[in-house]
């Protein structure tokens, strides 16, 4: 073998002669990025990404086709090279058309892989769907019931008919796993030995505890109430979040191994200093907004005038405050709607919500307002309380004096504040009043110790915490959730607490924070107006599934849940409505990876705006989206059967294809190698519809279970599910080649028809049994036969599909335990 000596990036390399620069670099573990390269093949239209500098040569050279020669001095990165790569990638980006992530995913405050869990539902993988949700949201049961559903507002299906009922699907998978007693087995990192105190057992506290525990820390939750849940338990009553569901949800989190101290009020029973003295490395404050803003009108200090938070808490605790037959609710926020609906359930005949603006301007979510209206709440709008007095009577105990309001002149920002209309007083008579004017974290300052008192607060009486680091002004004390932001949705509390958990982890471990996920994203159109309707050619109108709901006149009589949840069939049908906007090649796209690596700014280069080509699903196993094709031809080059052709009618002035065709020839054997070699999402496996984003994917190398060729395969596992199967091009005996079975035929692993329990025939029917019963029964019968007819009256068939170890044990069993050579297998069958 003759060799050449050359230098790459300063390293002296001796290489076999006759190789290209790219091959030499790869063998020396030097990465030169390429888009179109397939080992042993040369593209007719090189992508131009693999350029390098060779000393003494003016032009950059393509490393994939330049032979490595004696004495070459090669540089693989420089400003000039990067600029060239940027330019080449930019040209491709200009016309690349598709979404990296789906709009639902991008809109979700939690950045949940929404399309992913919907796809899991469509495939019947509910457990995996729930685990995927819980990667980013540990409260799927609650959020699945009360979320304002930011995602659904951006669902592209709106441009066809109605958005996908995303949140109902989230609730479905959570409920399904509960009713099927699924052990989620959520993974935890190695134990760190660090102790962290979480103050407050509501959405923020539970979330922080969940993620910190998953990071391997010892977490203790301190909760002032006698039960965990916080706002989930005391802000939403049973008809929104049933208690058994909430308890199950909390239990799912605690099962990770979290200590809980109940009835421990911060500042009274313990202090931050005390926690630090006990050895806690960090403290998380997730105390929420437990203080109601009081009603500031004359006569408000009256036993029949309640504050929303404390009223709901009383009812949640099973106390039944006397609210009489008529009640007024003052305020228009979400809590006010909960209060109105709770009053109706308590048997109050007439509930009136009083708000100084129009209904449309209420801060409550319109969906919540509609529910309250349906259940009989009345609204007295453009009115504001001025005075409360007692009537002295047994009924209509209170007299509430109101003033009519109108909207004033717009201020500098265009807001029109309501102002009283002089002389328009109006009086109503009620038995009780509940004010819901908003909530704050603390009245004055936190108390109990020096550190408590020193915690800086915002002007809105919430905790001041750095939005990036989650840190308060007290070292080692972090805060998140409503306690920082004021009242927000549960998912927003989850998001901020998740971020805080990551910050705390970095703080206690003295490590850098995990880098934020790149925001690089191709989009078919950021706003609805930008989305070309051609995207939906061939999509038929199919309205969303109707959530089974108890009629308002009945459900408002009790505290039972109003919305009953999707059935499995409904969930499957609803999941199938998903348009799967996001790219199923998210995890493997080289165009994205290289663009990020080389700082290509696609907002500057621009990207495709209309679908030039329809999606082609005519192949049995593969879906083709030519709009994503960058003409790298890796599919064609990697096809070992010469069964795929990528062609263009012509090329534009920048070398991009016009009139692109990707054709599977008649000799295609559906082995799918082209898909695994696609540099973008132009080729997709029909069955692999779950985009894989930041989830942990484990590659497990194994041997194909089909024919005797012994092909080496890689099982890509997420959670407990084999997502897809690929092969390593460098591994004998198949060197990356697989057949249609080897790459696609693995769905049987997760088949619902798999046997899950031992069976014993009783009264001529196979019934489920325990392993002990099955073993004992089988052993007794075999021993009886052996005793009566001798060992050769028993025969065994071994299995040519099972492992060597198992075949060995089977024959050993027959020869030792039974004592016969009546052992054979199906090799001849």
């Amino acid at each position, binding site marked *: 073998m003759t060799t050449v000596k050359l230098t790459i990036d300063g390293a002296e390399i001796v290489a076999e002669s006759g190789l290209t620069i790219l091959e030499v670099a790869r063998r020396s573990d030097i990465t030169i990025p390429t888009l179109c390269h397939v080992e042993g093949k040369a593209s007719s239209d090189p992508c131009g990404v693999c350029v390098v500098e060779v000393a003494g040569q003016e032009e950059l050279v393509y490393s994939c086709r330049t032979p490595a020669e004696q004495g070459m001095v090669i540089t693989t990165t420089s400003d000039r090279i990067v600029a060239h790569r940027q330019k080449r990638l930019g040209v491709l980006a200009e016309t690349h058309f598709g979404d990296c992530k789906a709009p639902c995913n991008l809109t979700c405050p939690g950045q949940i892989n929404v399309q992913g869990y919907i796809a899991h539902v469509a495939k019947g993988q509910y457990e995996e769907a729930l685990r995927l949700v819980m990667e980013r949201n540990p409260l799927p049961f609650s959020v699945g019931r009360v979320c304002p559903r930011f995602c659904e507002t951006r669902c592209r299906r709106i441009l066809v008919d109605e958005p996908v009922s995303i949140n109902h699907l989230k609730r479905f998978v959570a409920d399904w796993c509960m009713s099927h007693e699924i052990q989620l087995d959520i993974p935890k990192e190695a134990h760190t030995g660090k102790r962290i105190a979480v103050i407050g057992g509501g959405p923020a506290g539970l979330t922080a505890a969940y993620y910190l525990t998953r990071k391997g820390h010892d977490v203790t939750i301190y909760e002032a109430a006698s039960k965990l849940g916080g706002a989930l338990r005391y802000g939403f009553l049973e008809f929104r979040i049933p208690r058994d569901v909430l308890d199950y949800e909390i239990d799912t989190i605690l099962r990770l191994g979290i200590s809980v101290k109940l009835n421990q009020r911060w500042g009274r029973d313990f202090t931050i200093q005390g926690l630090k003295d006990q050895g806690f490395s960090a403290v998380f404050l997730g105390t929420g907004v437990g203080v109601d803003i009081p009603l500031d009108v004359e006569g408000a200090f009256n036993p029949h005038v309640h504050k929303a938070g404390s009223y709901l808490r009383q009812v949640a605790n099973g106390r039944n405050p006397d609210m009489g037959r008529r009640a007024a609710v003052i305020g228009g926020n979400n809590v006010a709607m909960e209060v109105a609906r709770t009053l109706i359930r308590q048997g109050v005949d007439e509930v009136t919500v009083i708000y100084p603006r129009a209904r449309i301007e209420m801060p409550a979510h319109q969906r919540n307002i509609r529910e309250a209206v349906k259940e009989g709440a009345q609204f007295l709008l453009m009115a504001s309380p001025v005075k409360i007095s007692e009537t002295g009577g047994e009924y209509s105990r209170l007299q509430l004096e109101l003033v009519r309001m109108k909207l004033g002149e717009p201020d500098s920002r265009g807001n029109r504040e309501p102002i009283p209309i002089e002389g328009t007083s109006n009086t109503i008579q009620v038995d009780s009043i509940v004010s819901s004017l908003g909530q704050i974290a603390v009245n004055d300052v936190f108390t109990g110790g020096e550190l408590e008192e020193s915690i800086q607060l915002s002007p809105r009486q919430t905790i001041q915490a750095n939005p990036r680091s989650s840190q308060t002004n007290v070292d080692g004390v972090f805060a998140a959730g409503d306690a920082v932001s004021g009242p927000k949705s549960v998912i927003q509390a989850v998001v901020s607490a998740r971020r805080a958990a990551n910050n705390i982890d970095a703080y206690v471990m003295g490590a850098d924070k995990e880098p934020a996920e790149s925001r690089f994203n191709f989009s078919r159109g950021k706003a609805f107006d930008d989305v070309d309707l051609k995207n939906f050619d061939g999509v038929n109108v199919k309205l969303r599934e109707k959530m089974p709901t108890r009629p308002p006149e009945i459900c408002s009589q009790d505290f039972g849940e109003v919305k009953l949840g999707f059935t499995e069939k409904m969930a499957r049908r609803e999941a199938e409505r998903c348009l799967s906007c996001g790219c199923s090649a998210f995890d493997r796209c080289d165009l994205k990876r290289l663009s990020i690596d080389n700082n290509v700014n696609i907002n500057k280069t621009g990207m495709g705006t209309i679908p030039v080509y329809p999606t082609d699903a005519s192949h049995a196993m593969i879906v083709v989206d030519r709009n994503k094709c960058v003409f790298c031809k890796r599919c064609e080059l990697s096809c070992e059967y010469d069964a795929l052709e990528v062609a263009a009618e012509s090329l534009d002035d920048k070398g991009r294809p016009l009139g692109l065709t990707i054709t599977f020839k008649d000799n295609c054997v559906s082995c799918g190698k082209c898909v695994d070699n696609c540099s973008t999402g132009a080729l997709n496996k029909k069955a692999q519809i779950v985009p894989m984003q930041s989830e942990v994917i484990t590659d497990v190398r194994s041997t194909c279970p089909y024919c005797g060729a012994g092909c080496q395969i890689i099982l890509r596992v997420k959670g407990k599910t084999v997502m897809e199967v690929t092969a390593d091009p460098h591994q004998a005996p198949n060197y990356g080649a697989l057949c249609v079975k080897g790459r696609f035929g693995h769905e049987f692993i997760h088949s619902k028809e798999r046997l899950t329990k031992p069976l014993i025939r009783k009264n001529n029917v196979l019934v489920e049994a325990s392993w002990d019963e099955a073993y004992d029964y089988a052993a007794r019968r075999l021993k009886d036969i052996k005793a009566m007819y001798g060992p050769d009256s028993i025969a065994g068939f071994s299995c040519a599909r099972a492992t*060597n170890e198992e*075949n060995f044990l089977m024959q050993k069993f027959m020869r030792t335990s039974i004592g016969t*050579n009546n052992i054979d297998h199906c090799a001849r069958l």
Partner: protein
Amino acid sequence: MAISFGSGAMTNSIGDIRESEVIMVIGSNADTSHPTIGLRIHQAVKNGAKLLVVDPRRTAFADEADIWLRSNPGSDVALLNGMARVIIEEELWDKDFVEKRTENFEELEIVTAKYTPEMVEKITGISEEQLRAAARLYASPGKRCAIFYGMGLAHHASGTDNVKSVANLAMLCGKMGVAGGGVNPLRGQNNVQGACDMGALFNTLPGYSGLENDDVFDRYEKMWQVTLPRRKGKAATEVWDAILEDEIHGLYVFGEDPVLADPNAHHAVKALEKLNFMIVQDIFLTETAKMADVVFPAACYAEKDGTFTCTERRVQRVRKAVNPPGEAKPDWQIFKEFSQRMGYAMNYSKPEDVFDEVTQLMPQYGGITYARIEKEGLQWPCPTADHPGTPILHVGKFTQGRGLFIPEEYTAPTEMPDGEYPMILTTIRETPQYNFGSMTRQTPEIENLCPEAFAEINPEDALRIGLVDLDRVEVTSRRGSVRLRVKVTDKSQPGTVAIPYHFAEVPVNNLTLNSLDRLSRSPQYKICSVKVEKVAA
């Protein structure tokens, strides 16, 4: 092959295919049964290797072949003997090899002398000209010539005779023990090789030590602390008669579905109905499991650790990727626990412990450990810890010393077409499906690709019976009948009908014959006589 060479495994390696100058494929449509191996053969042919195909069916190999012998079904021995005769007559044989490395050549010469081209043509339908061309191509002195065969050769009542005749031919031409040569059976299932190696056989202990070998028995008995039975056992295919004759009362079926798989399946069902007690251990409730008294739910390949040995004798790792569903357990664990209940303790905490025992007992595996095959499998024999494995068997010397020529006479298939059942049925595979479909048919896209069984029938026969594509027919043998649609194609030889066996709704083994090879006890899946009649859709 074991008798001819001392080892019955593929003699060469898959990677070796690119070294071959001539490839003879007999009774294998590797494109459907071993697609990645088929691919390598096609690639070798594209790169200049000559291809000789013996197959009654027009396969993709047949289309590509330099010579395609469309011999009559079941006539392989006559054809191979005829080829040997031509090779001897034309002095194309490797005299040096035969002299130095083989014995019993004289016998071969005597037996094959009878197979004149005329006689061969009568039996096989192959003309003298084609026969001679094929013989010359395979013999090509000095060239590397490989033989690949599949179940098309073995699944006959004369299966072992076929195989011995192939071995004779390879030795005669000196194609053994060289890269790009050899005799290469393609194993049908992922671990047939391993199951045989491990002694899941009625006539040998692990490692092919026959039941008559006392030294080996002593070693096993010492290791296992038990007295082992030395009586010959019953082959799987003999068990049904044994049940019906009250010899066998209990059956332990591990991962098999004889109700669908066995030839003349009605016969098997009848036996199972009579059986006193049956355990089935499987991943699905198979047709056989439905008849069991106890069913043990097992883990599938992705749910356990272990090794498979593929057709090129390469021992490779299987790794656990996910948990088994519900309470299902890995088979090794079931054996361990059940054996305990039966009163014989098996102390293994993991599959690797079992493997270590295997390597202590079996010299072929002696040098293999999980650590050594972590990245890439090793090909046995690999007797010592520093042995690199054996890509090519019989280099310089046969495993048993000298190769033994065992000439066999042609015998006609047990059942041949007659007036009542005028056509030959042969069972085949489709690429996307596997065995009885319990695995592949769970993938919807594969089902779409290959959703139903079609009876493939030659245009001549179609015309005669009055059939067009997609007509519905009833195919009947003396043992049973199935209904399905037809595909009219010249892939099938005139007078034959081919039906894939993957589909439970078309249980084609209700038709096949349980006539067995006298040595290996392999059934004659590939030939039985049937009639084909059109029925209403």
